[in-house]
């Protein structure tokens, strides 16, 4: 009998054109968040499941942000694997700055498929759907249970997406392990992540006519001074757990981080980072602004708690009596990680090595994903996906072959995880 892995790889090769079209169609369906309206994106994925004859449920606590849930049981004892991906993507910015036919073009040029969300993470979400469908076809050769979750509201914190599923359908979605196709690059598997600490600062002053600088302090000038003062946060030194510190000291890991996430990533994984995602102050050129809003996206590494960062922000704000601060990220999230040598991690490494010749190394990464919901529940969660280089930019794209490799690695790793005891695939 042909091994299941060979069958899966052959099936993916046979359906190559169909899979590319599937991703392209998904990219052509706008799902920007904000505003977060993802119904068309969900409908697109539902149509795929229906074509494959697969049952699913729509769970939509917010009607315009639906989540999809599908599951099958092999009727043989085994572990419960959960596939997770998100439907929503970053907002597109200004259409005219896109160089490849606009944010929702799905244009393919020189083997790359362009559009907002191609990398983050329509490539990975499609990989989860294809994996689910393929494994369902071959469920007679598997053990345990496979669940597919596709969520909305990931880009803005997950309250109505994975967070909602964990609060209301925990038994169905927690499982024993999670596999997620967020961008990781072919060189790494992600076993942990920094946590975002999102703060909104509001500066209030009296305001006045712009020529009358003696009449009022300027909310904009205070905001830009605050911006500079907040840079102090990036000097905080983390207290890392030993397993993570060992992993981060490994030169192979550091090289993989720099190769995969860009020069400097290995250093940044261990540091507090500060992004001023938005600044908005003033009504008019010639008015002294009475209000300015800063939105800061601070990322805490493993070893820096939210409590510590809060104390530091409070210290900085002592010099800014005009400023109030509001924390809008989830107050109990912390930087999170699971075993850098876990079972699924090894299966992903083997699958990736077979497919691409690269054995990805385990890394902690910079961006938050819904994988944290599993890790914070004590369930290991691993991420393997395409390169994140261009995500969020006006040239966001995924290589077509890169996409197909992500599909292959997910299908092989998931099948291996659900292999009946004593059998390989």
């Amino acid at each position, binding site marked *: 009998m042909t091994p299941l892995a060979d069958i899966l790889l052959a099936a993916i090769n046979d359906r190559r054109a169909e899979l590319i079209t599937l991703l392209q169609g998904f990219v052509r369906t706008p799902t920007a968040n904000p505003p977060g309206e993802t119904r068309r994106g969900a409908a697109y994925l539902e149509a795929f499941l229906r074509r494959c004859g697969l049952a699913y449920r729509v769970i939509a606590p917010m009607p315009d942000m639906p989540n999809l849930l599908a599951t099958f049981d092999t009727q043989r004892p085994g572990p419960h694997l959960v596939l997770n991906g998100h439907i929503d993507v970053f907002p597109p910015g200004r259409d005219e700055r896109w160089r490849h036919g606009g944010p929702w073009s799905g244009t393919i040029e020189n083997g790359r498929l362009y559009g907002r969300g191609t990398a983050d993470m329509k490539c990975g979400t499609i990989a989860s759907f294809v994996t689910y469908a393929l494994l369902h076809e071959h469920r007679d050769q598997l053990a345990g249970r496979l669940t597919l979750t596709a969520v909305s509201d990931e880009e803005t914190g997950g309250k109505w997406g994975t967070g909602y599923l964990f609060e209301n359908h925990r038994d169905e979605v927690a499982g024993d392990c999670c596999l997620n196709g967020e961008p990781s690059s072919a060189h790494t598997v992600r076993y942990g992540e920094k946590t975002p600490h999102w703060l909104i600062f509001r500066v209030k002053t009296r305001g006045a006519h712009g020529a009358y600088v003696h009449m009022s302090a300027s909310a904009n000038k205070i*905001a830009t001074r605050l911006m500079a003062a907040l840079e102090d946060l990036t000097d905080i030194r983390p207290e890392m757990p030993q397993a993570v510190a060992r992993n981060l000291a490994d030169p192979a890991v550091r090289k993989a981080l720099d190769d995969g996430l860009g020069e400097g990533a290995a250093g940044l994984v261990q540091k507090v980072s500060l992004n*001023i995602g938005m600044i908005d102050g003033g009504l008019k050129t010639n008015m002294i602004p009475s209000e300015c809003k800063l939105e800061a996206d601070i990322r805490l590494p493993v070893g820096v708690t939210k409590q510590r960062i809060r104390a530091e922000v409070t210290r900085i704000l002592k010099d800014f009596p005009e400023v109030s601060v509001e924390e809008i990220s989830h107050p109990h999230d912390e930087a999170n990680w699971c075993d850098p040598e876990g079972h699924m991690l090894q299966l992903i490494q083997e699958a990736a090595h077979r497919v691409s010749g690269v054995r990805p190394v385990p890394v902690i990464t910079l961006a938050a994903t819904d994988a944290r919901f599993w890790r914070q529940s004590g369930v290991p969660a691993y991420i393997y996906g395409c390169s994140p280089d261009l995500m969020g930019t006006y040239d966001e794209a995924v290589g077509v072959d890169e996409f197909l490799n992500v599909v292959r690695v997910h299908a092989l790793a998931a099948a291996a995880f659900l292999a009946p005891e004593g059998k390989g695939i």
Partner: protein
Amino acid sequence: MSPVEQDLLARLEAARERSIGFLRDLLRVPSPNPPGDTRAAATFLQRALQEAGLNSEIFSPHPEMPNIVARFDGAHPGRHLVLNGHIDVFPVAEHEWTRAPWGGEIVDGRIYGRGACDMKCGLASITLAFMHLHAVRDRLKGRLTYTAVSDEETFGPWGARWMFENRRDLMMGDCLLSGEPSSPLCVRFGEKSPIWIAIVVRTRGGHGAYTHMSKSATKIAGAIVAALEKVTEVPVRAPDNLVAMFRDPDIAAQVDEGCGAGHAGYISKPTLNIGRVMGGLKMNVLPNECRIEADIRLPIGMTRNDMRPIIAEILSRFPEATWEELSPPHDAPSWSDPDGEMMQILQDTVVGLGRRRPVPVITLGATDTRLWRYNAVPAYVYGASPETMAAADENVLVEDYLHILRTHVLAAARYLGSA
């Protein structure tokens, strides 16, 4: 006081409540700029003129920004005085107000509303002054022109600038009196000149967690805001008589009393306001674009060509930034004779009305009066306290408004002279 002036004062006393009602009604017609649509307020003014038997002409080079001109001749030949005000007002951040911004409410002797000081108080005053003087025109000499324009708050092209470019004949006279805010303690005879620049910072951008991947447009903008402060340190060579005037501690003290503590000190210095900063799409996206709008004010003694290379030098340190000027490229600080005839008339009139002699002042802001000065017409400003200008809960004291109206009426009558 001449008999005509006495009659005018009596008319004003009799019309006291109507005068107050007129300003309140004007404040109830919103005319914020941006967006700058002043049609409703212009209609209000034109109707008031019509009811007083005055024909006016509308010029609307921009369909939403009408300009009104009206004029009459006295019974005898004489000099030509022009009154000027603008109809548009600053925009409103409604949530900051504790009074209705378009309500014209009176509380504790103050009339509240956007434009109460800048400059619907002055606009109502010159409108009513024009009507009262019209009523006694058979005893006056010379000619009086009324101009109420739009598009002043943004120095847009569709107001007084358009009129000067296209109907200069209607705008010109021998002297200009404006009701812009000055404080009743001061008469403005000159003004600084704004340079408005827009700076756009562009970077590659990316994901907010990947701060190593791209420079941040917002952080660069923050650094630019700090670096721009240098423009306030540029040395200025002002004319000696002006320097001496504002070094006089009595004048400086009265200027600060009328226009806010610190005003006198800024008359001869460049200032920097960062009116707007807008950047980024979303908290967790590394911003690829940020826009800054800066409002720099040049004092008398400094030209745009003095300042431009300094701005250019500062911004050249930020290769991700491009910039452009938003303000009219040829404007300059402007001033009329601080001892001119209208200055003395205004000062004497105010003293005659029982108030403290106003001191001459250069305003920090800019007004359309500059256009008359550029055309060699002396221009003077007497109006409300600028204290709440552009701020929430903008207001004017009822008594100040009535005092300004009396001053405008009497000063205009004196300038024209009676037969």
